Structures are given as C-alpha cells and as structure tokens.
C-alpha cells in the first residue's frame, strides 16, 4: 500500500479553499517544498507524507497559519461599521476619562497576626502526595499567600527523586496529570454541597441519618466500593469496617491487577515487580507504556534516562536498548530502538515464543509468529536477552492477561533479572480480588437485591463500570447509596446521597509509591467547597469523626514510632517504609491454549478485529474530564486535542474503507458506539485502539464551552467495554458512518526548512527554493546511532559549517567572530541564559507543556479555536515520524522560544514591544504590544502566540472569580490583541538574581554580585517538570554549567542554522542504540 492511496483529510475544516489536489498543476510544484518520503526525512502527518498538508499546498498565499485570520465577528457591513464607529467614539471618550484617572483603588489586607516565617508575596513550598489508581506521586506544591498555584515532583523522595547523574542536583519530574489536578482546587463546577436524592442538602442532614447507617453495617447488605487507593490510613479504617461486617470492593477501570494475578500464577502469591531500569542494558516491554501510563512512570522515566544517557548509570560508552512490542503506539514504543506493532491479543504467543526461544522448547502454533519480521524480532531479541543475562528486564503491560504476566515472570527468572534489574516487593493487600471480579460481584449482588447500603468512595462506576453490568440500574435497587466525589457526577445524581470530596491539596492523607514508600499528603488550603477525604468519611461512619490529620498521624506513628511528625510532614515521606522485598521463585507455568485470534496471522477481517481500551492523555480514565488544561494539551502521539477517538492503522483503515476524521461505528458483540477515527501510523494492524475517558454526560461549564458541546468533550467508549472484553475485546467490527473533524495540531506551526518562506524566492511561478538551499538545509531533528558515535570520534551534529560563505566569515572573524548579520549584533558581558534539550531523553510525556501552562498563566482556547491554529502553548512538542506509515520511527521535539541572539522578531516590531535583553533573552513587554503580529510572521520557529480573542473573558464572571486564585502572580495575565511567547521563565530568572544579589550585598552569602549563579539555582518550569532532565537551563557565562557543557557537546545543534539566528536553545542529537543484527532503520537521513 502506498500512503498516497487514501485521502487523509484530517485537518481542520477551515473555511477557505485549498483544494489543490493535483500537485502537478500547482504553480510551485517544480521546485516547491517536496513532500517527505518514507525513505528520506521526517514527517508529521500522513497528509504531509502525501504532500497535502496545508503549509505544503499554499505556503506563499497566507502570511499566517490558515484559519488564524478568520474574522471574529460577521463581515463588516455598513450598518455594522457605523455601529462600531459610534461605539468606538463613545469608548474613546470613556477611555480618555478612565485613562486620566488613577488605577482602580486597591486595598491592602494584611493578616491580623502574621505566622512566623510567613513573608507576604513570597511563595512557599510544601511536600505533598497524590494518589492515582492506587499508586502515589510524591509532589512539592508551591503556595502563594496560602493558595497552591503550582505542582512539581519531590526531589528528596527516595523513590520519586534523586540525582540523575553523580554530582548533579536532586531532581524529580511531575506527571502532567498531577500538575493539572491543581485546576480542580479552584473549579467553581466542583460540588459545593451534599446532595440528597439529587437535591441540595447539608452535611448535618447527612449526619442525622448516621445512626441508621451504622445499624445497617452489621447486616450482610452493607458494602463499600472504593476507587483504588494505596493509603495505609484508609486500609486501617477498612479493616475496622470489615470487622463490623461490611464487605469492601475495590474497582479501577484502568487496573494493573492482571499483573497481580500473573505473579500469583507464577509464584503462588501475588507480588509486585519493581524494575530497576537504571541497571538494565536491555529493556523489553510487552504492550506496556513505562513512561506515562505505568504507576511508576515518573520513576521509570528517570531510571530509563539514567541508563539511556551515554556514560550514564551503565558506565562509560554504554547505553540501554529498548525493545517494544505493542498494539497502540505509546510513548515507550516511540522511544524504542526496535518496535514491533502487534495486536494486543498476540502478547501471549509473543511471550510464549520468547520464553521458548530463551529456555528452549517449542514455539506455539501461531501464523503470526511465522511471519518473517516477527520471527526475526523474537529470535534476535531472545539472543540478546540471553547474552545480557542479569542485565535485562521484561515488563508487561496492564492490558495483557495474567498468563502473559506469569510468562514474563518466568522469562525474567531465566535471564536472572530478579535481584539485578528487577525487585519483587510484597503486595500491600494480597487478598484483594481482581478489580474486575470485585465490581462484577458487587453489581450482581446489587442487581439481585442483596445490597441495601452502598458507600462509594470516589470513582464513577455508573460511567466507567463494564457496560454489561448495567451499574446504573443495579444502583437503583440499593436502598441507601452514598457517593463521595469531587464533582456531582453520573454516579452522584443517581445515588441517595452525594457528599463532596476534598481535593488532595485540601485534605490530610497518605499513600504508597509503587515501591511502597509511604508518602504523606498535607493540605495546603482549607476545602474550598467543603468536602471530606475518604478517610474522614470512613471515620465519620465508624462513629469517631476524627479529623484527617489525627487519622494520618496515628497511622504513621504506628509505622515510624518515635519519628518527629513535623519532620515527616516536611519531608513528605516516611523513610525506609518501602514494601519488603519478596524472595520468590517461579513455578512451572502451564501450557496455555491459544485462541483462534492468537493463532491467526496479522491480517484479519472486519468482524474479527480486536478492540483494546487505552487510557486518555486528556482525562486518564475520565476522572479529569473537567480539566481544560489536559483537554487542550495535544495527545502525546496523535496530537489531537479536545476529543477521544478510535485509533486505526493506515493500512487497516484503507482495507476496511474508513478514513481519518470519519465518524465510525465500532461494534463489539451487541454493543456499538460512534466515535471519530484517527489513522495512527504505527498502530497495530487490525487492532482498534479505543481511547477511554470522553463523553462525560455531566461535565463542567468550562469544558463544555471549550469542547463546544452540551456534554463533555469526546465520546463515551466505555459503552462497548464489557466484562468479557475488559482489556481486549474480540470480534469487533468498524464501519464508517459520517464525518467528524478532529482538532489536530500536528500540521500547525510548521517550520520545516523546505517550507521556510525566508529561504525561497517568490516569482511568477510561485514560491521556489534553490536546490542548493534545499540540499544544505538540515532537518529539524537529528539522530545518530550509539555505534556510529562510538566508532566515529569525529562525528558532530554540525559537520557542515552552517550556511554562509566561509570566505566572508574568515574575513570577519579577524575583526569580530561571526558578526555577519545585517543588523547590529549583541555583545554580552554578564549572564547568558541558555537551554539545551536532549532529544535522546525526551519521552514526549507533556509534563513540560502543563508545567508551562501553570507557571505562565497560559490561556485555554477551546476546540474550535484550536482548529483555527490559535492554541496558545508557549512550549509545544513536535512529533515526527520517519519511515513507512505502518512501522514508523518517532522523535519528539519540545520547542520553546529559541531566544535567538539575532532574533528576527525583534527587527520588525514597530513599537519595540519585543526587544533584546543584555542577557540574551528576547523580552516581551505585553503592555507595549499593539498586535501587528509582524514578529510572529517573522519567527522562523513559529513560537509566538497571539491573543486573537479575550481568552480570560469568562474569568471575569462572578462565578469564576475563584479560578483567578490559580494565577501565578509573578506573570502578567495577557489581554486580547497582544503577542506572547516563552520567556525562559524570566520571572524565575529575575527573582533568582535579585535574591542572590541581595544576599551577597547584605553579607549573607559570598561571591561577586555579577558572577554566575550556582548552576541549577534558577530552573525553568519545564525543566523542573521534566522527569528525564532532557531540558537543562543555565548560564553560558559559567563554563562549568551543565548547559555550557551540553552546548559544547558534539551532539548539539541549532535549529535552522542557515538563518543565522544564533538560537540560545540547542538540541542534542537523539542517539539510538539499535541491535546491529536487526535490519537497519534509516535514521538521520535528512537532506544533508
């Protein structure tokens, strides 16, 4: 199949016509930007591969990205014109009036008694913890005058943090979900009061009925349904409830319990594998995403980066090799040196074949295993695993059945992973049934009328329980149901009682990280809308009604007797509280029978398709469905925003007659669903990846506005998820049933060398490029193999001496090195702020994007405006494919403002709103900007963002007043009509500098006032959030700083060097480590 065979009309439906389908007749065709080819160069979308991306079709027609200049109001009519004229004259009068007066009167409201150590206007940091799906993330929350405004990882935490290299500062990344969860603290759509049968009530009214409730506990009809939690306090309270006779069920829609069942089958009891990736030379994942989805994702990302760095934790000249076999393309698959796209159901034959190849024995009978690519992959992988005995590890994913996890345990034992690259720790709750079993049991009991009282702690089972259990009608048969949740959601409105739940930043709590380290959550603010934590509600039900702090303190005191409580809260964790290591030996794994699907080859028919359920980058399992930040952050790999969709491989789509941006009907058994289709390069053939977490019926106003609907964005894919196809459903079919344009940003902000207007010349034949320019223009991303780097000591990312005439340079270097610009170049005497981004380490996890949004008050624009190219993110992550659409190779490239020394934006601003600082930053004074957008037009990297509309308009509504509390007071909130962009977190730079200078001048620290600051003292928000430390910020005037060393590295290169912009941000070439025996992947085949 050729990529040209199908029509990928998957951009936005912007109004104007660009139907130049026939490229040959297009005026620029002879020398215009050539479509990327699978063999050469990188491409961002299938459309681009076909030469049909908007920027390829009409690069010279539009000054701005298509859609951005769409009129906001109706076209100007005469009547409209006079209307506006009148209004503007009136406004001018008003404005003159207003302008002549003082600013709005402001009040200063000091505390009546100021606590010790509290400095008004200065941020404070508190360690805290957040529990998602039964695993904790250790965090540090930034608090400004008593309100949390930003979330980072806790670098001191033994599991979450630590130094990535000896001698570097301790660091911890923060998951994008954890960072974005801060939005919910100030969400006015959160439930403000308890509901009784759907009507507003009070907690007092609830307490009045407690007596009857307690009596009910002794009867067998009393149940608790909890979302997964690792809280030891909740566990202790649960034991007391269980003693009172209450049956406890735990359910999580995205559950890792298959792993527990698998280890139970392998070892006789369930244990938890904790991989030590920093020691592994070979890492194999079977349908598993280590870097975003895994409960230990941030830790795994860090450890992976440690052994991925050249000369990292594996020693000099060594780096790990990552093999991934998976269905849905994940961040792990994108990072892999070798990736095998396989249907999820084939995980079992894959694991069996791998086991057989390592320990001897016959491979299972499956057509798929006989396919040459698969056989080769498994043979070479098995060989490498045997070679790297004791230095390799295999990890299987959440979706894979227990059999695969059992086989993985056996394989790991054969390659001596336990004790070396893998630890097994004791299961904190070994007797707990599988989540699926628990919810099934409960729903059956409810339907049979055996449940009279049901207490639901968090979760939203009406929305996310398997569809065949029909949880909603089962709940109708429960006499008294109580639902504790942050929002009054689908479950709340059909329960007898809904109680508001406190946010994790509002309540005391505790939770265990994946290794079991007990981490403490301290509240940073009183519950904004009232609310209880799960532990507090349980205590209330037990009749104690103890405050959260008391409950947590008691639990912790039992674990760490004699420890100083304040110190533990300060640190955020209990030292040495990890779960005990389990000494286990794998038993013989029985032979497994393969299903017909597992015996078949990679080609399937419609009706035999497998459907897998994939977590959402926007809402995880639906719980963040009210989070506009997450909805607008493009998905890691699809780059879609504000929707969920079905992932279909290009070939499958082609053969089944569906297209990208089609609305398709997915049918599984007797259940079916309409959902948009996204043709995802690299998606396993004949496997449909259904992203969950969309289509919430009850959603917040913000999200509805942004998604442009009367319900939450996306489609509810849980409708086709049943107990029989909980992770992988069989015998699915798809058919097209309409059109639905996804808001996709993948072709936005294109800056490919071949598309750059500045490098072409425009004549009667249209925009053309000099072939020599095309030849020497380099690719945006660079890759090299570790082997090449090792062999060729002279290899450098910038071999060719950039772009200008060498003779001219030789001339000028005598006087002033490299001063070749037409404009006056700058000399720097003090700090020279700079950044380096290592493409080898970027997993594309979006942490930096959310961190930037939170730090810099970046507005959300909504689905419709994303389609008009108006998204506002200051840092974007460009995702490039290379190779064929079926087996592409992926590179992520985070792209902030490059802070050029010879910045093209500065030269064209007519009012000096953007100007160069003496430290090399391109400053942006919003208040001076008049919105000509010349700077954005002249920016070759496309990093400037214009406020086309008043994005903060709704924040002025009375009900949204509370949301303003989230703003970072150190950053100006921008108005309509001004340009904005990444500033390298200039507020952090200024505050860091001022603090250091003041301390030196007042004698509190030694050193010179203008000298470079200690490396790492000032960190940007994106850098702090990055789990792998791929982003390094620092001062080039300090030759020993990490950023200086990285800029000097032979792997470093600048983007578009031919433009002589001298960017302060350098990229480090991505180093791959393919197995030499595997067929060569064409990498680094740019135009140079």
């Amino acid at each position: 199949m050729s990529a040209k065979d199908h029509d990928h009309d998957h951009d936005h439906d912007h109004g104007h016509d660009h139907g130049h389908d026939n490229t040959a007749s297009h005026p620029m065709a002879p020398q215009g930007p050539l479509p990327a080819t699978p063999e050469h160069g990188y491409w961002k979308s299938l459309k681009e591969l076909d030469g049909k991306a908007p920027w390829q079709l009409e690069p010279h027609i539009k000054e701005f990205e298509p859609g951005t200049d769409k009129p906001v109001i109706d076209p100007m009519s005469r009547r409209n014109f006079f209307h506006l004229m009148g209004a503007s004259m009136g406004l001018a009068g008003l404005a003159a009036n207003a302008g002549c007066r003082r600013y709005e009167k402001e009040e200063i409201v000091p505390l009546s008694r100021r606590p010790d150590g509290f400095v008004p206007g200065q941020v404070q940091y508190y360690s805290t913890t957040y529990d998602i799906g039964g695993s904790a993330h250790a965090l540090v929350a930034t608090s400004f005058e008593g309100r949390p405004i930003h979330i980072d990882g806790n670098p001191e935490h033994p599991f979450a943090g630590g130094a990535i290299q000896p001698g570097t500062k301790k660091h911890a990344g923060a998951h994008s979900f954890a960072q974005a969860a801060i939005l919910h603290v100030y969400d006015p759509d959160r439930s403000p009061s308890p509901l009784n049968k759907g009507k507003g009530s009070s907690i007092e009214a609830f307490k009045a009925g407690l007596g009857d409730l307690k009596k009910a506990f002794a009867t067998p009809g009393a149940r608790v349904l909890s979302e997964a939690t690792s809280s030891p306090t909740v566990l202790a309270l649960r034991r007391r409830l269980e003693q009172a006779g209450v049956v406890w069920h735990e359910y999580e829609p995205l559950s890792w319990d298959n792993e527990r069942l698998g280890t139970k089958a392998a070892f006789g009891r369930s244990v938890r594998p904790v991989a030590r990736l920093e020691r592994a030379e070979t890492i194999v994942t079977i349908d598993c995403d280590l870097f975003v989805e895994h409960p230990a994702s941030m830790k795994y990302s860090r450890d992976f980066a440690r052994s991925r760095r050249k000369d990292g934790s594996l020693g000099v000249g060594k780096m790990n090799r990552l093999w991934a076999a998976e269905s849905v393309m994940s961040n792990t698959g994108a990072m892999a040196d070798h990736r095998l796209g396989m249907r999820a159901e084939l995980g079992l034959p894959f694991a069996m074949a791998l086991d057989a190849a390592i320990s001897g024995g016959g491979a299972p009978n499956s057509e798929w295993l006989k396919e040459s690519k698969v056989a080769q992959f498994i043979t070479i992988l098995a060989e490498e695993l045997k070679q790297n005995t004791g230095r390799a590890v295999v990890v299987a994913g959440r979706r894979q059945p227990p059999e695969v996890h059992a086989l993985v345990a056996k394989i790991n034992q054969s390659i001596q992973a336990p004790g070396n690259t893998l630890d097994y720790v004791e299961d904190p709750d070994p007797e707990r049934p599988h989540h699926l079993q628990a919810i099934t049991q409960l729903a059956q009991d409810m339907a049979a009328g055996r449940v009279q009282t049901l207490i639901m702690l968090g979760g939203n089972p009406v929305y996310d329980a398997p569809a065949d259990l029909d949880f909603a009608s089962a709940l109708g048969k429960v006499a008294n149901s109580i639902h504790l949740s942050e929002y009054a959601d689908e479950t709340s409105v059909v329960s007898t009682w809904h109680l508001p739940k406190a946010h994790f930043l509002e309540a005391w709590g505790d939770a265990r990280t994946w290794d079991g380290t007990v981490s403490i959550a301290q509240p940073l603010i009183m519950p904004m809308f009232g609310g209880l934590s799960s532990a507090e509600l349980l205590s209330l039900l037990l009749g104690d009604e103890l405050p959260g702090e008391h409950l947590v303190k008691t639990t912790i005191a039992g674990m760490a007797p004699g420890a100083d409580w304040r110190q533990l809260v300060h640190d955020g964790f209990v030292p040495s509280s990890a779960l005990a290591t389990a000494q286990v030996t794998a038993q013989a794994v029985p032979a497994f029978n393969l299903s017909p699907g597992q015996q078949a080859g990679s080609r399937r028919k419609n009706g035999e398709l497998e459907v897998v359920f994939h977590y959402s980058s926007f809402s995880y399992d639906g719980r963040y469905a009210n989070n506009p930040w997450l909805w607008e952050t493009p998905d890691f790999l699809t780059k879609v925003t504000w929707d969920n969709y079905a992932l279909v491989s290009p070939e499958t789509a082609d053969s089944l007659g569906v297209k990208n941006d089609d609305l398709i009907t997915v049918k599984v058994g007797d259940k079916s669903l309409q959902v948009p289709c996204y043709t995802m390069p690299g998606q396993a053939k004949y496997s449909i990846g259904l992203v969950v977490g969309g289509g919430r019926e009850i959603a917040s106003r913000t999200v509805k506005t942004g998604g442009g609907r009367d319900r939450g964005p996306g489609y509810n894919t849980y409708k086709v998820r049943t107990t029989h196809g909980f992770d992988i459903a069989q015998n699915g079919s798809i058919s097209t049933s309409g059109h639905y344009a996804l808001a996709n940003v993948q072709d936005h902000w294109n800056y490919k060398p071949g598309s750059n207007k500045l490098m072409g010349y425009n004549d009667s034949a249209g925009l053309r490029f000099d072939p020599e320019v095309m030849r020497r223009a380099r690719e945006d991303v660079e890759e090299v193999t570790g082997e090449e780097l090792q062999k060729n000591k002279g290899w450098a990312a910038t071999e060719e001496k950039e772009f200008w005439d060498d003779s001219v340079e030789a001339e000028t270097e005598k006087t002033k090195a490299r001063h070749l610009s037409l404009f006056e170049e700058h000399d720097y005497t003090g700090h020279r702020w700079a950044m380096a981004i290592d493409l080898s380490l970027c997993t594309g996890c979006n942490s930096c994007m959310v961190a930037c949004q939170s730090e810099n008050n970046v507005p959300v624009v909504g689905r419709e405006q994303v389609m008009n190219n108006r998204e506002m993110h200051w840092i974007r992550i460009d995702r490039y494919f290379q190779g064929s659409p079926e087996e592409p190779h992926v590179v992520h490239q985070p792209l902030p403002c490059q802070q050029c020394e010879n910045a093209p934006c500065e030269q064209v601003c007519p009012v000096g709103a953007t100007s160069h600082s003496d430290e090399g930053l391109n400053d942006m004074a919003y208040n001076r900007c008049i919105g000509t957008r010349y700077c954005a037009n002249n920016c070759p990297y496309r990093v400037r963002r214009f406020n086309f509309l008043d994005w903060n308009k709704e924040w002025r509504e009375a009900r949204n007043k509370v949301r303003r509390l989230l703003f970072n007071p150190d950053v100006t909130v921008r108005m309509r009509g001004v340009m904005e962009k990444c500033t390298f977190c200039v507020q952090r730079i200024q505050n860091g500098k001022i603090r250091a200078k003041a301390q030196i001048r007042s004698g509190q620290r030694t050193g010179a006032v203008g000298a470079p600051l200690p490396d790492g003292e000032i960190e940007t928000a994106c850098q702090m959030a990055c789990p792998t430390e791929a982003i390094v910020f620092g001062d080039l005037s300090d030759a020993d700083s990490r950023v200086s060393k990285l800029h000097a590295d032979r792997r470093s290169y600048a983007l578009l060097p031919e433009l002589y912009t001298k960017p302060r941000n350098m990229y480090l070439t991505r180093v791959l480590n393919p197995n030499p025996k595997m067929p060569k992947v064409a990498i680094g085949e740019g135009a140079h």
Partner: protein
Amino acid sequence: MSRFLFPEWTETLKKWVNLLVLGAPVYLVALIAYGVTPEAIRIGYQPDQPVPYSHALHAGELGIDCRYCHTTVERAAKAAVPPAATCMNCHSTVKKDSDLLLPIRQAFSENTPVKWTRVTDLPDYVYFNHMAHVNAAIGCESCHGRIDQMVKVYQAKPLTMVWCIDCHKNPAPYLRQPSKVTAMGYVFTAEDREAIMKKNDVKPPINCSTCHR
C-alpha cells in the same frame, strides 16, 4: 439706518481677541495634557485610611525605624504592611482606649484584617522588588518621599517609567550608606556614592524584563 461700524479703537483689540481665540485651544490642550500627566494626577494622591495612622508621629517624632513595621523590606519583593499584632505591641498599653484605634483592636481580637487603601500603586504589569533596591542602598525616601513628615501618607514621586529608568541609567546620585537606607532627610555625599557604587557593584539593568514579566 446706516450700517453699524465698529469704532476705530476696536482695531487695537482685534489682535488681542485673535490671540485669545487662537490661544485658547492651545492653552486648553496644554492644560489638559499637563492635567493627565502622572505628575499632576498621582503626586499628592492621599486617600483616607481606616485608621488615621500618622507616619509623622511614629517615624518622625518617635523615630521608629521603617523596618520595625515593614519587616520584610530587606528580604522580599513586598515591604509588607504590618499585621494588627504589630500595632498592638505598643497599643496594648499606649492609648489603649483610643476610639481611633478601635479598628486595630477589633482586627486583633476578632482576627479580621484591617483594609488599608494602597497609596503607592504601580500597574499590575510592573514588578517592583523592594529587596533589590534596599540592599543596593537605595533609601526609602528616594521613592516614598519624606514619610517622616506626612501626617497622612500621599504619593510623593511620579513613579512613571521614565522616572524609574532615569535612576536605572544613573543610580549614583541616589546611593547612600547602607546603614542609612531608612534615614529621612539624608544628605548625599560624593565620596559615599563612589564607594557604594563600587562596593555594591550597582549596575541596574534596563531590559524590558527587568520590570515587565
């Protein structure tokens, strides 16, 4: 009836009338233009406060150091307005029954803050940092004026961008002995300036991002 003719002598008035008619708009424009300058509008702004606290009495007559109340001025961006508790340090014994101090006593006992009106107000897109200036040996007086003589605080300086930049370009005339940053009526000496300029290595930046973030 014959046509009315202006008497001869009005001819001499004509130029004055012309001057008036032509000059009036110019005058008006000039008047308004000056009237809307920060110098005219902001200097002298003197709002009422909930408590008629007199800096002239406390800082001037009694000689209490600025930092007794504005404790954070040397280590934070804001020179925080003191909590009611600070007032009560003295006023629990001094003038403890004064009606004027009722809001302070109320704030202290009921833990409800006093709502002061901001006098020295900068636009929200300007980030001023007290710590940076005080530690570089710029005195309070340079921006706030003779606080020690103000019974009711008013804005004494224009606080305009050009006023800020003038000093950032040439800070030397405003540097004083670090021990005297809070002193009022300070007499600058040339020797001081040179020594402090050197000791503090004062090079105020004039980048946009110095104040606008």
